[in-house]
Structure formats: C-alpha cells, structure tokens
C-alpha cells in the first residue's frame, strides 16, 4: 500500500570510498551508508526544535543516537513553555513521575544528554510567537541550519512556517492524531511552505445555536466552556482592569461607547455590587441563582417568546428539527446532579473572591440546608425580549441608542462601589485547567453542559467524554509518534547534505490502525511570473544603500511594476491615493517607517521589510515578494 517510484537518496555528489570506512565510533552504521563528511555535517548542525512534548522526546532520542548537534560546532536549541503532567507520561518517555510540574524542555534536554553526553543542547521555556521575537531574534534565526517542529497546534506551526519563509530555513514538520501520522518537508525554494495548503477550518456552530437553540451535547459543552471563561476568568480580569486603573478604564469605555462596553460594565458592576461575595454562603447564593437563571428563568423566557406552537414568518413551525423545545428544570437539593453543580460553582466563585471553602461543604445534609436558605426571587417572563435567531449573527449584544448614557450611569455606580471596597481589593481570575481532577473545573463544565442538555432533552455525557470535547484533547499514542519522528529523521540527512532535488524528499502519511503507509514527493512552490522575472513565496527582493520612497518606486517601475501602496507591518507608509503622502516621497524609507509607523529598529538591525502592492501596465495586480530595504 504505497505510491510513487523509488529514487536513490544517497548523498548527491559522488564520494571517495574512504569516506565510508568505519571510524570505530558509535555512528559507524551511518557512516557506512552516508559517509563521514555527511556525518560531520550532522554533528555540526544548528537545530531549533520547537516543542518538547511527545514528538519532542522521540526526536531528541533519535538525534542523540544519530549524533546530531554533537560536534564542536553543533547546537540544539529546544523550547517549550509547558510543564509535565501525569497524562504526558504515556508517550513522553524522557519524563518520570517525579518530574511532574517541572519544565518539559529542561527535563527532556537533560535526559537526551544522558543518551549522548556530547549533545550540545540548550533548553528554553519560551512560547514561539511575535512576543518572543526578542529571544528568538534575527541573529538566532540566521545561524540555524534546520528547524524541526514538535508542536500540537496549527497556529504555532503557521508562525514557525512564516519565520522559516522569512529566514529561508528548512522546516521539518510532522503531526499525529491517534494512530495516524503525517510528515511534511518544507525546503527553501524547492517546496511549497506549510501554510500554502491549509485544511478547511473546523465548522463552528452558529452563535444563536449555542446560545439558545442547542441540539447536541457539543453545543452544550461549547456553551459551558464559554460561560466558565466568562464568569470565572474574563469578568474577574475585567474587574481587576477597572480597579487597577479606574480613570483610564472609564475613559476607554466612554470612547468605545458601544453595546460591548455596556455589557462589560454591567458584569463588573454585578460582581462588585449586587452579586458581590464576602462569605461562602454568598457564593452558594450566587451558585443557586445562576442555576435558576440558566436552567429555569432563561428557558421560561425563551418558551414564552417562542411558544411550542409558534410559527416563523413563513408559517412553518418554529420549533422544527433540528431545534429542540426546552423545558425548565426544577431545582431540588435531593438531586445529586443539582447539588454537584452548586458545589462546583460555589467553590470556584469563592476562589475568585479569595474566600476559603469551609469543611461542611462536603456534608450533603449541611450543604442542602445552606442551599435551601437561599431566597430565589420569583420570575415572570416579559414581552418584547429580543432573542437572536439569525444563524449568521456574529454577536449577541443588542446595540441601542442610549448606550452612551447608560455607560455613564454605570460608571458612576461603579465609583460608589469602589469607594466601599477594602483598599487593594482584587479578584482572582481562574484559567481553565482540564487535567487537574481536584480543581472542580471539569465538574462545573460537565454540570453546566449536562443541566443544559437536560433542559433540551439531549443525552448527557460522563466527565471523561466531557473533558475530551471541552478540553479539545488530542488522542495520542507512542507508536505513531515514534514512527513520525523516524520518518522525519530520515529526511534530515538529505536536508543537511543540501544538494538534493525536490523529488528526493518524502512526505508521508500513515495510519497504523489500518495499516496504511503512503509516501509522496513534496509539492514545489507556486511560481509567479512577470516579464522575464519569476519568483516564489521564498524570495525577497533586496534594495541597498538606504533608498528613499521615490527610489523604491522607481526601482520597481524599472521592472514594469507600478507600486501604489507600501506598508510596514500593519502601518501604511505610502499610498498613491493620498495627496498628502506625496510629501513623503523624498524621505528615506527607514525614516518614514520610524516617523509614521513608529518602527522600533534596534541597533543590531540593518534592514527592514516592506510589503508593496503593485500593478502591471494593464492594471493587473501582481503579487511581489517582500522587499528588504537595507539602510545600515
């Protein structure tokens, strides 16, 4: 079960037979196949490994055995901002039980060095992204020989891909999902980059479905996750933002003046005024009233606005499939699932207010008594309440004319509240952590989702399944992980050898469950052409000697390209539409970037990159490479 013809992938240049003689080293097997020159290249390689989890551990083991970065000039930098936890240990075999809580990259590096003490490895804990470009700066990237991805998410992969495109570095990419794995080689100028072909984005349920018309447990879990974040993370963070800088916060709310700002303020006010918690009993009250609001009152309002026999504007029944007609729940302290909801919600609420949890919470009788003490106001559904039904609606905030006035009112009320608070009062936002079974996070998420499911007569799920869906867990096993890294490491030899054609490389896809094993040549990059020039996404055009905007435009004009817009990052430096911009034409590009775009160009930088939009003489848009302007 394979595709494509065989191609030799020995070193591209003919080698002297003596190159293959064993050197009495642990790498003799490799030398006999690939020669000692290539082995030396491996040893002196400067490698950047992004990620130190399952793939990372397997890679480090392979690289240590192969002798990669084990020579005097070699360097392997590995980075990962995550710490080790229990469920990692079923794949990430460089970690032990006593490493739980420690940084993945450090522990992995140390274990890899035991396999080969010559390994020149440095472990960092930075997440790669725009915020860490000070750590992974130009000098760092320029020195690299190859980049190896060992990541678990697409966004990070796209970022690394962009960096490798920019610095023209080979990127070895791989991923697993259960028994499936795939590898992709990204070689400068030879292959397309990782981001050139994207999987279609996951379909997300429309907002109104999640908010009012769920019909499966995924909708309920999405809603639960969203409520969790809103109640326990976002609102407390918003409260703190206000309390830390009341004046700035107030003016930015006034400036925004929209429905979103109004909603934020209402939530902050709720926390500090009407629903403020000072004792644990307050938290129980809050939890009980949340239950009533979510699973009783909102449903009553919904079915009041849209009764069972309601019809749409076309006369069809409103509550036709897939919509499910909901029923309000009736709270009972005798129902363990209701009580468990109260426990999880009140404990987490208490955590955000820094209130300690009393022992009697574990006593069901005392807990029921505490809950029964809560006075639950009567609820009457109202006429004229707007409930979003349009699937295309992206936001649920209903804008209204007097938002600005309401915002002012809210701000005044907030000021009064603030003055009554102890000085230095802050809340503690909670970040969802799915893998700690003692933190009540999954208990609350499952509780929220299942009570909601009960409203809509949707089958409920156990905590394991809830964790899988809400936690967006990726099922993972050691076998496919090991295989993926083996396949990538085979390609590493070709990358370091350097002189191979695109047909020599292999992308693979395998599914060990079937079993299925397929290989393919990487796809070359798309070639853009204009007059006698051609280029790909890998190219950059370079202008030296500190040109002005006019000189840049003329340089492009000489190539038959009419530049009409020039940007630096997200800032527009020049656009032929604006008469004012003509004043800038004789300024140096770097100066315009500094003045207009407030570009911070550190002393070690000698160039900046601009994106230029061009047309040819027939007004066709031409996608040109990034242009690097050297001013230093």
């Amino acid at each position: 079960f394979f595709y494509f013809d065989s191609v030799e992938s020995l070193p591209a240049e003919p080698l002297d037979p003596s190159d293959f003689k064993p050197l009495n080293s642990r790498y003799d097997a490799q030398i006999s196949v690939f020669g000692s020159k290539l082995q030396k290249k491996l040893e002196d390689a400067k490698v950047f490994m992004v990620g130190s989890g399952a793939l990372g551990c397997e890679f480090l083991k392979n690289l240590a055995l192969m002798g990669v970065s084990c020579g005097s000039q070699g360097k392997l930098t590995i980075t990962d901002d995550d710490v080790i936890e229990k469920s990692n240990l079923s794949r990430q075999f460089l970690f032990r039980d006593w490493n739980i809580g420690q940084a993945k990259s450090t522990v992995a590096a140390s274990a890899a060095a035991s396999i080969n003490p010559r390994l020149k490895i440095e472990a960092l804990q930075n997440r790669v992204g725009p915020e860490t470009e000070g750590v992974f700066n130009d000098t760092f990237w320029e020195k690299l020989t190859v980049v190896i991805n060992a990541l678990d998410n697409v966004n990070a992969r796209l970022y690394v891909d962009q960096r490798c495109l920019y610095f023209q570095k080979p990127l070895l990419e791989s991923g697993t999902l259960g028994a499936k794995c795939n590898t992709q080689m990204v070689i400068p100028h030879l292959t397309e980059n990782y981001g050139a072909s994207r999987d279609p984005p996951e379909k997300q349920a429309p907002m109104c479905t999640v908010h009012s018309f769920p019909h499966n447990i995924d909708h309920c879990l999405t809603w639960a996750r969203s409520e969790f974040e809103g109640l326990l993370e976002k609102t407390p963070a918003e409260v703190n933002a206000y309390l830390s800088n009341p004046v700035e916060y107030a003016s930015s709310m006034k400036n925004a003046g929209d429905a979103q700002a109004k909603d934020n303020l209402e939530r902050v006010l709720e926390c500090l005024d009407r629903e403020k918690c000072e004792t644990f009993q307050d938290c129980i009250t809050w939890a009980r009233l949340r239950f009533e609001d979510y699973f009783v009152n909102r449903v009553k309002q919904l079915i009041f606005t849209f009764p069972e026999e309601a019809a749409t504007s076309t006369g069809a029944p409103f509550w036709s499939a897939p919509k499910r007609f909901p029923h309000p729940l009736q709270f009972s302290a005798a129902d363990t699932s209701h009580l468990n909801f109260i426990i999880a919600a009140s404990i987490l609420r208490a955590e955000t207010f820094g209130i300690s949890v009393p022992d009697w919470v574990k006593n069901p009788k005392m807990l029921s008594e505490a809950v029964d003490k809560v006075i639950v106001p009567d609820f009457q559904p109202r006429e004229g309440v707007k409930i979003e039904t349009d699937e295309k609606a992206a936001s649920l905030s209903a804008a209204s004319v007097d938002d600005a006035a309401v915002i002012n009112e809210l701000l005044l009320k907030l000021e009064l509240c603030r003055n009554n608070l102890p000085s230095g009062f802050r809340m503690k936002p909670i970040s969802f952590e799915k893998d700690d079974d003692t933190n009540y996070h999954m208990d609350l998420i499952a509780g929220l989702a299942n009570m909601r499911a009960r409203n809509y007569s949707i089958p409920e799920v156990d905590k394991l399944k809830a964790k899988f869906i809400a936690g967006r867990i990726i099922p993972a096993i050691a076998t496919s992980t090991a295989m993926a890294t083996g396949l990538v490491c085979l390609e590493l030899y070709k990358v370091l050898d350097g002189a191979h054609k695109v047909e020599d490389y292999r992308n693979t896809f395998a599914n060990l469950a079937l079993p299925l094993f397929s290989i393919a040549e990487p796809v070359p990059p798309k070639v853009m052409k204009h007059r006698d020039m051609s280029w790909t996404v890998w190219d950059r055009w370079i202008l030296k000697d500190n040109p002005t905007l006019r000189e840049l435009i003329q340089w492009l004009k000489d190539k038959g390209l009419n530049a009409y817009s020039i940007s630096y990052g997200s800032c527009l430096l020049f656009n032929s539409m604006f008469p004012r911009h003509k004043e800038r034409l004789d300024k140096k590009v770097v100066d315009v970037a500094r003045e207009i775009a407030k570009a911070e160009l550190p002393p070690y930088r000698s160039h900046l990159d601009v994106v230029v939009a061009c047309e040819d003489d027939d007004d066709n848009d031409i996608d040109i490479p990034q242009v690097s302007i050297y001013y230093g």
Partner: protein
Amino acid sequence: MNGEELTEQETALYDRQIRVWGADAQRRLSKSHILVYGMKGTVAEFCKNIVLAGVGSVTLVDDREVTEEALSANFLILPDENLYHGKTLAEVCCDSLKEFNPMVHVSVEKGDISTFGVEFFGKFDAVVISCCSLAKKKLINQKCRKLPKRVAFYTVDCRGTCGEIFVDLKDYKYSKKKLEETDECQLEFPSFEDTISVPWKALPKRVSKLYFAMRVIEQFEDAEGRNPGETSIADLPGVLKLRKELCETNSVNESQIPDALLERLLIGTSEYPPVCAIIGGILGQEVIKAISGKGDPLKNFFFFDAMDGKGLIEDISEPKPVS
C-alpha cells in the same frame, strides 16, 4: 469485561491512549504478557512502545554482553560503562524499561531460548524475536503454534537502512469498526516455515525484492553457521553463488534480487536509529492490535527501505485453490 475496572492511576496515566483504543483494549493490554528476544535497537524501540502502552509484563531474553556497538542504536543503554559493565543486554535494557512505566512488570529470563519448552512459550500472549537464525525462527514459531491458546508470533530484523517484520497470528478472530457498526473478521496466517516455502515462482512479480534478498542472506548465514548479522562485503561472492542456486531452484530470474541490495544487507549489519523508530512503532502497534483483538492486522510481511522510503505489506501465502 470481567467487571474489573481500570484503576484511577491507570485512567489518569492512559487517558490519551484510551481515547484511541478504548478502555476495554486497555484492560486487555494490562493483562497481557510479552516475550522479547534479541535486544537490538529496533526491539528496544518496540519495548519502549509496549511498556508505555501498559502491557501486563515484558520478559526479555538476551544473554549477550553489552558492547560499544550496541550504543549506536539502542537508547536504553546509556554510554556509561559503570552502568553496563558486567551486565547482559537484557539486564541493562530491563533496568531502563522499568522506569518508563512502574505499572508494567519487566524481567529477564536467562538461557538458550532454543531449549525452552512449549509450556514456557505458553505463558505469553505475544512472542517477538530478533537476531535469530533461520533454524531458530522455525523452531520457536513451531513451539508457539503447538499451543492450544493463540500466541501471537513476530520476527523483526533491521539491517542498515532496511527493516522486515513477519507476523503469524495462526487462526485469528478479531473485530473491526466500520462507521457505526463493528464487523467480526477472521484470518488464517501461515507458519513461518510454510510461508518461506511458498515457491518464488508462485508469487506476484511486484513482490518486494527485499523479501527475496532477506531469504538469501538468511539461508547463507544458516549454511555457513554464522550468527545473524555476522556478514561482511567479503561474503558477496558466496552470497551471489547462493542466489544463483536459489533462483534456479525456484525458476526465477536473478535480476529479481539486485546485487546492490544484497551488498547493502551484507555491509549494513548495524542498525540505523530512524529506521528502528519506524519499525519499532509499526511493530508496537501490531502487537497492541493483536492483544486487544481490534483492527486489521498486518498480514504477513512488512518491508521498509530507507533508501526509497517505501513501506510495503506483502501477503506471502499459498495461493488459495480455485474451487
């Protein structure tokens, strides 16, 4: 299953893999006993995989002493003479493997495996052998087959950039998920001896050249009384002569087994780490499938050649009589 639930420890540790193969498969794994012979790099990878997966026990057999050569592809052996001095390959690997999963019982069995009786093999659910001569492979396979219970049998060998796996599951009943349903399937596997006795002329032309090449080398080592892997380029004339004989006997063209391929197998007696990871991963998953009784097994040979990157599954069995 038997109403025996996984412990809280196991659920926490195996969470990510239970989501792949299910709690029932995990339970079966935790009760399984695996025998492993020949502790080279690929087998080390395989052992790592099944220990992490949480099998019940792994018994290692390899009385050879640790040499520097072992360090080239076996990551279970750390390059510290103090750690491995005076110990056998099995003993050092056992020490390392134990650390990967304290819930798996890893132990060493000493002695000549050819002398172990049928009852010994009966203690295991799967037997994986490497670095075995032709005679030993046949012998152990026969003993496994004699048992009334099914003992899954695998051979695995990596030479340089090439790897080979052989699978014998006897009469194998298993389940397979198809969309919403589960199908019950059955496969009959030929023994190792029967498999390699299939006349070469009866096999499809496109069968991997590696199959034939490995059989030539195997028979050469057997005829010369060599230990597996004890060859060099100096043996090429002898091997070519044997190839000529075998091809004549089997009425196939010698070009089916290229010189260059035989050379590579003769020279490349050491293992190559990335190939060990690939083969060890595939073999690990096969054993997990066989223990859990879920999913199509590999039938019955797998070949990998890093030179072209191809991974091939070959079904080498007597063609079914047309009735």
